[in-house]
């Protein structure tokens, strides 16, 4: 076992574009579930609309990168509105089923061969970050080519630019969510989570508040998808229901009703994934366990599932959550 390289690879997992993208999506889920009590199991759908919206706007409509990102965000707002009108009056578990179904509808629409010219079907879309006419995200990279950082945190100029962009988005997102949640609006949202009828009795329009929460969380999800798209191809194989479950696991790990919990939960989740990937493949190669490397990489997802179960059973408030502010009130 080469512990040096395992440690190195695990440390790399601390700060990757993936971690940043999923932190943003987990923040959106914290808005939906942690604060507003909405059981959204369609966060992958919001991410898909963000990522695909950005890619399609750039490739098909020829928009510059920042306009393409706005396009993805507008798309997620429209999706939230369409999703929210029929579903927000449903009870929790119904909402879970409907949102998971909606995310799957979105994914199948991107997968079908009927719109291949726009969506790329099963192959997905690529080549939208660097454009020949200079309007791409990487074309706007101010960093000169080269290698930056040290040790496990060594990046080329392209990755570093993605990281800088992702960190800025994440910091803005965290501050915004923090400000929102300590505002009067945030208190109403938390009140809806605890007791919807009580808030209604105070004369508040619960439906409107829930819709606002759904839209805001959806924009976070879309930003997660966009940050993901700034460094990777978008394809229907990415935005599957498992992705939603992984983000839920990250969220519950950190604490659903907290601001920094989702971020730290995501970092822990992906660092742990990096660690397990490396350890398990070493275990398989060195023959400590009689498994193939493919089987070894399957094992870490088994551990994710078991981890999620134990977490929800024994520590539903997460690492940073407050037991008094339980989110499983209904």
């Amino acid at each position, binding site marked *: 076992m080469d512990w040096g390289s395992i440690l190195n690879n695990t440390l790399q997992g601390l700060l990757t574009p993936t971690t940043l993208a999923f932190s943003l999506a987990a923040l959106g889920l914290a808005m939906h579930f942690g604060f507003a009590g909405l*059981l959204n199991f369609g966060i992958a759908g919001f991410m898909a609309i963000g990522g695909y919206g950005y890619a399609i706007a750039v490739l098909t409509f*020829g928009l510059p990168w920042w306009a393409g990102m706005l396009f993805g965000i507008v798309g997620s707002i429209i999706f939230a509105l369409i999703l929210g*009108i*029929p*579903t927000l*009056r*449903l*009870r*929790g*578990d*119904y909402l*879970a*089923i*409907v949102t*998971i*179904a*909606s995310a*799957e*509808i979105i994914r*199948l*629409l991107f*997968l*079908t*061969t*009927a719109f*291949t*010219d726009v969506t790329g*079907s099963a192959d997905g879309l690529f080549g939208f970050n660097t454009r*020949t*006419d200079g309007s791409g995200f990487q074309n706007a990279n101010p960093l000169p080519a080269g290698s930056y950082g040290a040790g496990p945190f060594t990046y080329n100029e392209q990755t570093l630019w993605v990281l800088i962009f992702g960190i800025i988005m994440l910091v803005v997102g965290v501050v915004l969510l923090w400000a929102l949640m300590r505002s009067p609006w945030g208190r109403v949202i938390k009140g809806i989570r605890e007791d919807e009828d009580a808030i209604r009795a105070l004369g508040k329009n619960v439906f409107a508040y829930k819709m606002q929460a759904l839209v805001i969380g959806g924009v976070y999800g879309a930003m997660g998808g966009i940050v993901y798209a700034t460094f990777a191809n978008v394809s229907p194989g990415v935005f599957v*229901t*498992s992705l939603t*479950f992984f983000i*839920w*696991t990250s969220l*519950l790990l950190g604490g659903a009703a907290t601001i920094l919990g989702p971020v730290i939960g995501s970092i822990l989740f992906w660092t742990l994934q990096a660690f397990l990937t490396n350890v398990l493949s070493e275990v398989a190669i060195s023959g400590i366990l009689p*498994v193939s490397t*493919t*089987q070894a990489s*399957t*094992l870490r*997802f*088994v551990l*994710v*599932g*078991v*981890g*999620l*179960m*134990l*977490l*929800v*059973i024994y520590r*539903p408030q997460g690492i940073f959550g407050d037991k008094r502010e339980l989110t*499983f*009130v*209904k």
Partner: protein
Amino acid sequence: MNILSSSHTNRLARGIAISFLSFIAVLGIAMPASADSVGEEYEAAILGNVRIDGEPIQGVRIVVDGNGYNAETVTDEKGRWLIGVPQTGTYNVTLDESTLPEGIAVLEGGATQEVEFGRTDRVTKNFFIGEGTRNATSLFDQIVARLVYGINFGLMLGLAAVGLSLVYGTTGLSNFAHGEMVTIGAVLALIFGVVLQLPLWIAIPIAVGLSAGFGWLMDAGLWRPVRKMGLGIVQLMIVSIGLSLALRYIIQFFIGGGTEQLPGFDEPRVTLFGATALSSTDLISMALSIVVIGGFAYWLLKTKTGKATRAISDNPDLAAASGIDVDKVIRVVWIMAAGMAGLAGVLWAYFRPGIKWDMGTQILLLIFAAVVLGGLGTAFGALVGALVVGILIETSSLLIPADLKYVGALVVLILVLLVRPQGLLGKKQRIG
């Protein structure tokens, strides 16, 4: 013309291409001898001749479809046609038989045939036509066939859905691991029927029996202890998601990522009536589903445990106060739900066909759609919902692309919730 891909010259080039095309069109009217063609701006093209006994046929419609491109043309008076395509690759060429003269049809390979480009930019596609009956089926026959397939699929779905709905009714759990219970049935049939080479009539009952045993194990090992801890329904649901992930990847750990087949999956389909063709496996599958669902209905309506199950679904506290052993009934419900899900898995393995580690996940949402359509917690509602979903999926592929047929079912799910959130047979109190 690579110039087309450059964005600056794009508009200019397209303008030239369009004027060139209109020029061709004008020529086409003036000189009707030229081959009827579309897509001349592309270098690659598919072309052919439509002739019968050396005599050209004019005005036959030809459609080319593939790689995200679609174009059509009609043959000129020499029977010639040419359709330009943006890139070489594989395309479907369709000869519209309704534009052929009366009594003439495509004799070999069907009206739609695949064409693949070789090293050159041109490929010729000629259809063998002659006197014969057309393979065109009437819309009515097609609808009947789709209905039968839909009922077949719906019955299979129903086997899984009633179990999910009963578990929900008695425990309040929306079980996301139900899809894996379906997969486990199919995998067990694979182990006993293929790996251990047992005959199917032994292997399948063993698979269903062990699936039911797995239901017992899940209740005894996980769900009952968790119920005793007093977890809320949302927590239970997320626990089931964790279980679903763990089980799914454990199955992948053992059987890998490929697709396996059960014996007899490729039984030939025999035309029964109209356009309806079923294999013996399909017929056995439908009969088996009907018998099992019938037995289940009898159990639920007539037996003591069945009545107790319905009582718990209605009001668990009242049922417990009336002396019903709730835990015992729930244990029975888990065993039955898992057994039926296992059988559904075996049938789903034949319907797809194939056994894959994520096959249960693929229909989990359809099972949920069936249950929600019928009304969460109602057993017969789930059955009705399953038939509606099955028929809807099969008939919708007459109208929408086949790879979007699940989308139709899921959209209907959302629309039904909009007007009738409690589902078709559900009670109003169930909505929040």
